[in-house]
């Protein structure tokens, strides 16, 4: 268990289009204050890379875009409440939080 819950180091894997938009290679490492949730991780991600605002969730409502999904630890977290705690391996930095473009098309 992560004994220091005030700050977590979260590894985030972005899809290729968003990596290019954010001008990053490979994974992004984010220090997330407080409890690590989908919402707090995305807040931190958008704060560091403002160009990603609106690409994963709607500006106004904060809702996940329909063709974006969130995976971690071989689970689909897309429909979890945005404020639900992320799995412990993600919080400990053992597993990444995956932002995925939904499989669609050929």
């Amino acid at each position, binding site marked *: 268990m992560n004994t220091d819950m005030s700050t977590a180091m979260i590894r985030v894997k972005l899809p290729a*289009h968003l990596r290019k938009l954010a001008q990053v290679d490979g994974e992004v490492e984010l220090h997330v204050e407080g409890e690590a949730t989908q919402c707090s991780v995305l807040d931190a991600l958008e704060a560091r890379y403002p160009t990603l605002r*609106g*690409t994963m969730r*709607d500006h106004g409502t904060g809702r996940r875009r329909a063709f*974006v999904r969130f995976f971690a630890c071989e689970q689909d977290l897309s429909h979890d409440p945005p404020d639900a705690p992320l799995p412990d391996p993600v919080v400990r930095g053992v597993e990444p939080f995956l932002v995925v*473009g*939904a499989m669609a098309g050929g």
Partner: protein
Amino acid sequence: MSGVRVLVGTRKGAFVLTSDGKRERWDVSGPHFAGWEIYHVAGSPAEPNRLYASQSSGWFGQLIQRSDDGGTTWQPVGNEFTYDGVPGTHQWYDGTPHPWEFARVWHLEPSLSDPDTVYAGVEDAALFRSGDGGQQWEELRGLREHGSGPHWQPGAGGMCLHTILQDPRDPGRLHVAISAAGVFRTDDAGKTWRPVNRGLQSEGIPDADAEVGHCVHNLARHPSRPDVLFMQKHWDVMRSDDGGESWHDIGGNLPTDFGFPIDVHAHEPDTVYVVPIKSDSEHFPLDGQLRVYRSRTGGNEWEPLTNGLPQSDCYVNVLRDAMAVDSLDSCGVYFGTTGGQVYASADAGDSWAPIVRDLPAVLSVEVQTLT
């Protein structure tokens, strides 16, 4: 040395094609924003190196990109397009109410005088404006809320505001076109609007000459004669001589009056170009022959332009924003196809040659004349 820069939006990125005034040899740059749909790229008439691009994806939504060096480098700017107030409903395809939902920016229209002011026509139909180079966007809500909005319905491509015309005499006057609602005009810089569709007749709506509901595909005008407007409607090529107050049919001898783009020669206000398409159910040229039609009489009398264009087995389409003209002494005409070709004519349409043949499907073509 004069030259031209052709801005091409495609299903999978943007391309910038440049040439000197002869328009014989071309440099091709791109793809910019590879893999994204680029509905439109437009340059500022006031500062030609200022470009704006609409970048979108069904997965990751809408972005606006801006270049300050003629398309060499780009920076994402603001992408928050929020309808002002509660947007309500429009008609869905079956006539039932459907909530207004932002999908994408179809068309960007930089101001004639200020590089930092740019209009955006969006789906679901609305008009936005930025006064700070695209960082912040504000809806001109008077259009959507002028009263007929609940009766607007989507065309096959979505309910999009795709055409924005600025009046060179009066910055307060704009015409916009919406598919499928029609043409709307403001005389007070977007505060109030009214439909200007008298004379249009459309199948597919209960009242063929209704005030709104017409599937207007594109509008064009010559800057020297701002009150003369040309329209390619779903079916019908139309003309107004009074700023849109009334319209009359100028299809004349066209082999079909269905089509998408329409444009006007840079130096001859009565020379008009269209690309006839077989029908609304068969979106390709008649008989597999890609032909631009030109009228030198402001409509009614049309001649086919075929020299250099494929005259057999051609089944591409030319979309509404995919035709443009330059303003060099010998007016250049350009269009892109859904087959990925961009054709250019340096002699006002008499002869054509492809600049590129194998781009992704072309969504839009704009041209800047550089001096």
